[in-house]
């Protein structure tokens, strides 16, 4: 097994205009919380709130591109959103292996995304399977 418990990984991501606009263009979620500055401020936020599922795109990138093997598949993932993410926020992503299950070739990570104020904006767990 090429993964070990306690091993950790870090990436940083920017919620850019391109990603935000692309997400809306593809998935058509134009809820005013995400698209109307005044609406979002009226609800207590600092501005338009980015779609939480943009972070799932970053997770997909991490699993698909940043691990030391491409022979894998996502089995499951869960994510909790803790604080709003805004346009152009830079997020620090950290993932740590918390379970290695040799018998079924599965690896479990816990992860979190933090903003520039070191505030956790989302956290969760993800389990992958290895094709070996």
């Amino acid at each position, binding site marked *: 097994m090429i993964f070990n418990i306690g091993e950790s990984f870090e990436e940083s991501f920017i919620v850019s205009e391109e990603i935000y606009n692309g997400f809306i263009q593809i998935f058509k979620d134009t809820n005013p919380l995400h698209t109307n500055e005044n609406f979002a401020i009226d609800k207590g936020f600092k501005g338009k709130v980015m779609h939480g599922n943009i972070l799932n795109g970053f997770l997909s990138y991490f699993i698909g591109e940043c691990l030391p093997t491409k022979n894998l598949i996502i*089995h499951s993932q869960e994510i909790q959103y803790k604080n709003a993410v805004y346009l152009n926020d830079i997020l620090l992503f950290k993932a740590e292996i918390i*379970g290695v*299950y*040799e*018998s*079924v070739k599965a690896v*479990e990570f816990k992860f979190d995304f933090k903003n520039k104020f070191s505030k956790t904006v989302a956290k969760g767990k993800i*389990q992958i*399977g290895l094709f070996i």
Partner: protein
Amino acid sequence: MERKELLKQINSIFIDTLDNEDVVIEEETMANDVEEWDSLTHIQLVVAIEKHFKIRFTSKEIQSWGNVGEMLNCIQEKGI
């Protein structure tokens, strides 16, 4: 652990993992008897059982199971 209690705990794990409150497993139950028990669910079941009892199986052990009873044997052989 008593066999009956072990089966009860395994049944709870099946209910949680398969997200089906109606699942009732017996010693003779096989994967084909439970609609949701497919290959991916099998992985989730094994992971959940390993976590719950703080044990580890080998792939050889898992491949040897023909039914739930054989799975229970394997768990008990690990001192549970």
